[in-house]
């Protein structure tokens, strides 16, 4: 890089425009791949993890509805829990 003097040095834009024209070498990996996979059956599809589900929700812009749903679910569970406790207390008061 430092061997080039300023007169011959290209700008970054010129460099990348030229670099995009570089042709890839011809390679053949078929035999190597075939021997690599010979003893490896394709893995069975794993069930999506929780993290993947969260990623999908956020990726699709569903984060807000999902959070709202989560808040409603928490509220409902909390309310049901309180009512349940009241009921248990009531039943317990009869038994005393």
């Amino acid at each position, binding site marked *: *890089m*430092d061997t080039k003097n*300023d007169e011959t*040095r*290209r*700008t*970054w*834009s*010129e*460099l*990348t425009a*030229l*670099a*995009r*024209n*570089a*042709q*890839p*070498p*011809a*390679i*053949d*990996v*078929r035999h*190597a*791949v*075939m021997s*690599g*996979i*010979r003893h*490896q*059956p*394709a*893995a*069975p*599809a*794993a069930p999506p993890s929780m993290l993947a589900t969260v990623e999908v929700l*956020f*990726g699709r812009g569903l984060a807000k509805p999902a959070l709202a749903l989560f808040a409603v679910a928490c509220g409902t569970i909390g309310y049901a829990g309180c009512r349940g406790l009241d009921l248990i207390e009531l039943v317990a008061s009869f038994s005393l």
Partner: protein
Amino acid sequence: MTDPDLELVRRARDGDALAFGELVEKYQPIITSMLHRFAASHADLEDLVQESFIKAWRALPKWEPRQPFAHWLRRISARTGLDYCRRRKRSRITPVEHLPETIDTASTDTAREALDEARQLLGRLPADERALLTLLYLHGMTIDEAADHFGWTTAKTKIRAFRARQLLRRTLKNHGYEE
């Protein structure tokens, strides 16, 4: 539009290695073209192309027919390129070798030299930034395309690209290059 590879991929997914071999034969030029801008040597390039196909074989059960196989494979190879940049940074190896097997004409030599030079400059950046700028500058991808290939969100890719361009600007300045 139906995927022209649907039948072959389905067979490969069911464990037919020969069908997968046909896919390798068909797509290795495309994958090589994707990865030769990442790889510093011919041996590395061969390893990367091979690694991409083996990853694809293992991930075949997750492939869904609604996404074109070619695109899915390109994404796997882009992530293989990203992993390669990360591994190289970790091992602190920074030599740049020339890929020897190119068509021997003046114009391709110039392009090859330019690619080596650009890669040397990008090699001074952190791994993720280097990989991202490889897609943006050497492949000519847009932010959205790069995000899709690496499996990042667009926002994350924009932030990374902004930081990467700042670092690149500093590197170019330090080495006497203009933008």
